[in-house]
């Protein structure tokens, strides 16, 4: 699990980095961590089954940047 403090540090570092880039007018940094368990109850009286059926358990983390850049003069 990635804690909230780590995610906060990540977006702070990210925005500091983006702010220093040439031609960036505005930007948003987004960070997240997710854990996801899918559970299905599946009971078939006439066919062997597991009852609780977990089709998946996943963890994921993501980092994204939305940036507005200055137009080049032509």
């Amino acid at each position, binding site marked *: 699990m990635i804690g909230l403090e780590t995610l906060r540090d990540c977006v702070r570092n990210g925005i500091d980095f983006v702010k220093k880039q040439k031609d960036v007018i505005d930007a948003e940094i987004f960070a997240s961590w997710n854990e996801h368990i899918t559970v299905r109850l*599946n009971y078939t009286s006439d066919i062997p089954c597991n009852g609780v059926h977990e089709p998946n358990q996943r963890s994921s983390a993501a980092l994204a940047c939305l940036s507005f850049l200055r137009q080049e003069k032509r």
Partner: protein
Amino acid sequence: MRYTALCIILLLRRIPIASRIKVELIDTLKETVTKVVQHAGSLKNCKYADIRLGIHETKYANAEDGKAKGMGEDASISFGIRVLAGEMSAWGYYGQSIGEGESNPKSIHKVLTLGIKKAYARAVANANKKAEFKSLAPSLTAVSLARIDICNDIINAVYDEDPRNVSLKDILTICTKISGDMRSICKDVQYAHINVHTGINRELFCSTEGSCIDQSYTLTQGMVSVVAQKPGGIPEVCYDYVGDLRGWEVLKGKNVYKQSFGDFALLRTRETLELTEAEFLPATTEPVVVVTNPHFNALLAHEIVGHPTEADRVLKLETAYAGRSWLFRDFQDNELGKQIASPLLTAYSDPSIHGYGHFKYDMEGTPGKRVNLIENGILRGFMNGREYAAILGHPPNGSMRATKPHYVPIVRMTNTIFANGNKNPEEIIAEVKEGYYIVNHRIPSISESRENFRISAQKVFRIENGKITKLYRQGGITADSKDFLMNIDAVGNDFEVFPIPNCGKGQPMQVMRVGNGGPTLRSMARLTGHQ
């Protein structure tokens, strides 16, 4: 001011992701994966465990009406773990994407070990609950797996032109040029969209039973989407794909259509324009003679043969989401060994032949092999995985796949097709006094247990006295699945396998590439269209 839509950039280093995560990384991780899976096997009451670790490198671009819309390159690494544990064995799963910073042997060892721990805990918890409810629910059963051969193998990707060597500029140029050429054909072309991607996948599979399989494949695909409309008319829409498990050469003509992607896109555009001038197909209340072409039969095989012969549907595991199968009500009441189609019809699923559903081993490490689903009209078997094979008492046939390693493998079609016949398709049409020629699939609508279907066609032609005459638009056919299969009285010798890139199944949804096809068929169905 220029706006860049969701420009995802690497924050810490100015190095493209794709230049750092490469499929070759698997070579340095094999030993680690093997060690971690062996450790899983030593856990108390662990009956089985496997790890799949995969890397996917891809480049893509798209354009509309000759103008660039986007392009990019990406690389990802992820893993999935399955553990079978507990007194009354049950599954536990865990999957995760991994960042570049973690993709070294030491960090991988750490995240895999954590993953094993989580999957094992889920398995034991599920097994304990299953045991607790057993007295109330007698069908609850410990999971057992059908035996398979233990394999150690390396499968290399096949390509003439390596996707990794194709420049993004070339990919974008093909998109802008083709979509521009499509738009330029005629002012009635209202919208032309091209999407292209090319890449390589490599996946490592290791199990506690000792299997270690390293498989790679390339995939190149082009999608065309076109809208045509006459002034004041009703729009006509077409989308279709060219694709294969090969390199960039796919778009230069090494594909099922044996033509370049540009020629294919222009052909689909001209066909769509032609349809804007056609009459709407009148629906019928009674079945009529229909001749369906191989492209249409790709979706027909997919929907009325492929899905109902997936063992998880058969065993009602997909009831709440995707549906069941009319072929299997229970062990006493089912269609196995019974006539469900014309004796002229054979259908099978075969990952060993070329097509989008090709592989050597499935994602349980089972060697993929041809499964005869319907033999001369008799239902013979289902596509399965090891757990479902054990329940059904059938040999495992290697049909389990996951879209990405962090998803759980489920039963998927491979190359699921109607077998070739021996009749010339022109002869099949020439024998029809009054009927319709159904050309190229569009959109399916299928009943819950697949016992009937409605599939729309790109084009429908009238057949009069053995000759193709009038073209109609926005039509299709509907029939009871068994009636349609039983009424087949001619099977062509023009067998083809088409790429179907977007078969959706599972929770969470997994979009899978499969191969579907067959030869020209003749049967009976009602026409759908305008009343």
